């Protein structure tokens, strides 16, 4: 497993785009806070200068490319025709992606801290700024919440990538999941009104999780028709199910 991880990192570090993406994760919050005076308050700073959106988007692209590029370069064959099991190869890809997400968050955090020092030096992180708590707590909840959403969408993206062996469709779906949340929310609510059982649809669970930390538990319950705890459990079940299906497709695929 260690060898596989070393190889995955070796390949990743040889890609110029990784450095560009990491650099942009630092620059993004700086640019937002520098250009827009209105984005120097608690809402922006605890959202890493809105770089959570950037990290989310790049994370999805990286996830899709991590598998689809192996197919398009033809490198999937030497990757799979070695002593390692497909389960180990799949896991190494997941761990690589997760570590890149975390690195992107660290980059965005560094950019946000620099931006706060330059553009909002009087901002006090110890003051209560949201339902979740003070500045640090709100930022922490926002990052963890975004990371969990990324893991959910990444599972879907991996599933699609493994099915169609192309990154385009998977990235498209991932982007829809990000920017189309309000539309999905409306459609989901209409469906639930028609048939209450549909509250278990993955989009409703996703919306419930996206609101975690940003809305009170009672507000979330009225939105998605289930408690916050149930949302988390359903979310984890969906994540697990999607990764298992993605793995089974990957495992069965002849190349």
């Amino acid at each position, binding site marked *: 497993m260690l060898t596989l991880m070393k190889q995955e990192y*070796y390949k990743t570090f040889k890609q110029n785009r990784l450095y560009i993406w990491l650099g942009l994760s630092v620059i993004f919050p700086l640019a937002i806070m520098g250009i827009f005076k209105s984005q120097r308050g608690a809402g922006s700073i605890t959202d890493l200068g809105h770089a959570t959106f950037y990290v989310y988007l790049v994370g999805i692209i990286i996830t899709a490319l991590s598998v689809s590029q192996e197919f398009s*370069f033809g490198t999937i064959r030497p990757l799979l025709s070695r002593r390692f099991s497909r389960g180990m190869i799949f896991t190494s890809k997941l761990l690589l992606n997760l570590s890149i997400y975390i690195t992107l968050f660290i980059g965005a955090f560094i950019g946000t801290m620099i931006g706060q020092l330059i553009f909002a030096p009087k901002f006090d992180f110890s003051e209560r700024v949201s339902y979740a708590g003070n500045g640090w707590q709100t930022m922490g909840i926002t990052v963890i919440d975004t990371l969990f959403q990324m893991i959910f969408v990444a599972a879907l993206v991996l599933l699609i990538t493994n099915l169609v062996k192309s990154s385009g469709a998977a990235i498209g779906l991932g982007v829809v999941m990000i920017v189309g949340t309000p539309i999905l929310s409306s459609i989901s609510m209409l469906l639930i009104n028609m048939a209450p059982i549909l509250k278990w649809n993955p989009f409703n669970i996703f919306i419930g999780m996206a609101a975690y930390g940003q809305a009170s538990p009672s507000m979330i319950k009225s939105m998605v028709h289930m408690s916050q705890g149930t949302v988390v459990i359903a979310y984890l079940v969906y994540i697990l199910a999607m990764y298992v299906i993605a793995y089974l497709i990957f495992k069965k695929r*002849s190349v």
Partner: protein
Amino acid sequence: MALLEVKNIDKNFGKTKAMTNVSFNVEAGHIVGLIGPNGAGKSTTMRAITGLMSYSNGTILFDDKPITFSDHQALDKVGNLIEYPAIYPNMTALEHLNLYAMDTQDSADFKDLMHKTQIDGDNFGKRKAKNFSLGMKQRLGIAIALIRNPKLVILDEPMNGLDPQSVHDLRELIRDLADQGVAFLISSHLLDELQKLVDDVVIINHGKIIETATMTEFFSHDKVRWVMDTSDNDATVQLAQDNKWTVTVDEGHVQLSGADNLQNVITAMNHADIQIQTLNTVTGNLEKSLLDMLANDDKGE
């Protein structure tokens, strides 16, 4: 005991039978040519051996260890180049070798391998693989197949995109490695090249093995032919027919076979007062033998 044993392998794609009861062995130090027309099942066989494709029946053993779709630890000592080189466009040749050598304690000497596969020249240096020509990529693909000091190397169309000098050098490299005990399973449509290289042949058609033999055995079926220009072709044809030899006239040249030896032919022609102006002896030709064999197989003979 053979290094690679393929025993009674079946593979179906839906209702289409891609491999039926495929069996053959590859001995250590032997170069085996897997030959057949397009769609015969060569790549499918190679994929099954390298754990890239499942098979429904039979067994594949490498070094007495099983290779299946889900369990192929035995592949540690198998190198392969299947269909086209697996190359990351943003990495150099040396970086590729570094990458693929990471999962072994026993990798080939980089400098030596790069020299032997000709990927050590100025053209390679710091250039990314995306800027390589087809031939350069192919040479890198061959180096990748050899980097882990494999006991068995599976090469699918290894001469693709190579210039004549590179083909010659590759042949020498394969022969050298085979002399050191490395086994090769090679598929190629360049039968003249294959004929110069392989020790054994496995002929596959419509997913079935129709012949496994050493090259010597294979050509023992192939009759010696004599191609000659004579003072009287019509009289030569008549003479051949009288002696029940096989004869054809092609573009003014008489092609004759079926006689016990050349001396009998010359003696008979002298007696018939026919002058031989030019004479060539044509022996075993892999392409012709293969085409004859496939034609017979297609006829169900």
